[in-house]
């Protein structure tokens, strides 16, 4: 029994400190800016440049009439014209403000709906399958009934956005809650987190990554639905958004205007995702050690 001497407690502390040091990964240093530019910014810029080059080449090669394929410079000059007329930002803002407001409404409805479906068995059995099914229904299908019910106005636009985005947001939350490890619920219960306290301190934070994925998809659906509504239901009273810009281009046989509208729709959709949802998602995943550094 020589091992049970007085100094053993100090030995254990040292041994433990050694184990901790060996088992802990060294802190990763911040990636230098030059490397970020090289690895994250350069590739997409190269891709865009390549697309532009191919586009310009096809125009030079005159593969088709120029009313079908405008040159990049023609599209650029219609951007400039729109800007000089002072309309560019207004057109973008009309659509973006509709899209974001509609998305926030969808958030306010989809979140409690998702909670209900996830937690109340009867509600899940009743509308769970319909909610998943609605995700595969193209939201453009809602435009005709929305126009008939609500008329050609902003309410119609918001109705179409809601029908497109609410199921995504609710479903994201439901799958997030379904994937909460039962061990967390048991650990919470032994600490006294039951009922509402369990929902607040265990279930909701644990479901956050799934919820965020649902929000991201919800935004994509909001934006798509809105563009469909704007293209189909154009009316002078509604003000010109990106969808109407596209439709106007078609009516005036202005292919440069059509290209411009499509590119703007794409850029706005990507920008909102890149500026709002991706950072949010990365922040949450990194905090939980779920983001593998590439």
């Amino acid at each position, binding site marked *: 029994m020589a091992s049970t001497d007085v100094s053993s407690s100090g030995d254990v502390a040292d041994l433990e400190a050694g*184990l901790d040091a060996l088992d802990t990964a060294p802190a990763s240093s911040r990636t230098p800016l030059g490397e970020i530019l090289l690895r994250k910014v350069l590739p997409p810029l190269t891709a865009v440049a390549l697309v532009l080059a191919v586009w310009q080449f096809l125009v030079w090669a005159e593969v088709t009439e120029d009313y079908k394929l405008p040159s990049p410079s023609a599209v650029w000059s219609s951007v400039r014209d729109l800007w000089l007329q002072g309309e560019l930002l207004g057109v973008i803002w009309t659509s973006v403000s509709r899209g974001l407001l509609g998305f926030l409404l969808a958030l306010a409805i989809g979140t409690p709906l998702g909670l209900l479906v996830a937690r109340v068995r009867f509600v899940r059995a009743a509308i769970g399958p319909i909610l998943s099914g609605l995700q595969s229904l193209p939201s453009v299908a809602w435009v005709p009934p929305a126009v008939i019910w609500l008329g050609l106005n902003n309410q119609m636009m918001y109705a179409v956005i809601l029908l497109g985005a609410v199921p995504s947001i609710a479903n994201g939350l439901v799958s997030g809650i379904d994937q909460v490890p039962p*061990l967390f619920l*048991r*650990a919470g219960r*032994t600490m006294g987190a039951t009922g509402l306290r369990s929902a607040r301190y265990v279930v909701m*934070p644990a479901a956050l990554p799934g919820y965020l994925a649902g929000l991201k998809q919800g935004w994509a659906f909001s934006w798509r639905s809105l563009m469909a509504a704007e293209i189909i239901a154009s009316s002078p009273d509604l003000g010109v958004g990106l969808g109407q810009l596209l439709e106007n281009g078609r009516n005036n046989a202005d292919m440069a205007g059509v290209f411009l509208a499509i590119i703007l729709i794409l850029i706005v959709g990507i920008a909102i995702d890149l500026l709002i949802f991706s950072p949010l998602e990365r922040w949450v995943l990194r905090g*939980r050690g779920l983001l593998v550094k590439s």
Partner: protein
Amino acid sequence: MATVLAKAEVAEEIPAYAARIEHVSKSFGSQLVLDDITLDVAPGEFVTLLGASGCGKSTLLNLVAGLDAPSGGAIATPGGRPALMFQEHALFPWLTAGKNIELALKLRGVARADRRTRAEELLELVRLAGAYDKRVHELSGGMRQRVALARALAQDSSLLLMDEPFAALDAITRDVLHDELTRIWASTSVSVLFVTHNVREAVRLAERVVLMSSRPGRVARSWDVGIPQPRRIEDAAVAELSVEITEELRKEIRRHGQH
């Protein structure tokens, strides 16, 4: 102040046991998992429940933790809701190590102003003073289990239930955590009911080892260990008793191969 006084009053009339399990049985459907288990854990006592797979030791622990209800018999834990440690750390990945402990304090009703200090004291107790701001994924397996132990102690329960908490750790880390658990148990008045299938671990830690038989789980035998702490898992006395208990455990397991 009122809560402090109330607590002191409760502490004065300490019952003779930290947990009393009386004629407890548990069935899942038609299958009897636990049969007539009677077992007391004295205040401050360290008891290990030892058994092969299928003896229902984890089921029994869940019953004592109040996560499930017995089919028959009664369980009393006069010190309130017991704390429970799992084989997996079960720490919440969206909180830092410190905040995990603080959540347990908050759910117990500790005032906001006291939580941080108490959490840091508990981290110091498990020798992780610098880990307050660490995320769970930044900690090693052994460190996670120590934070989980600190979180369980934050519940300030008089009974700590442990469900094979060191089974997933490597041997050296497990040895160190045995030392730590013994030290912390000796320095607090907490009673421990520790489930394991590792005989040496049971003997290394406990004052009393309770062997369970399997299918259905019954108390087969118990041993008072009586070897002075601190012990080492490789001590001759630990090994000697382990051999005796292992022999009994094997007998129990063999019975099942004979039908």
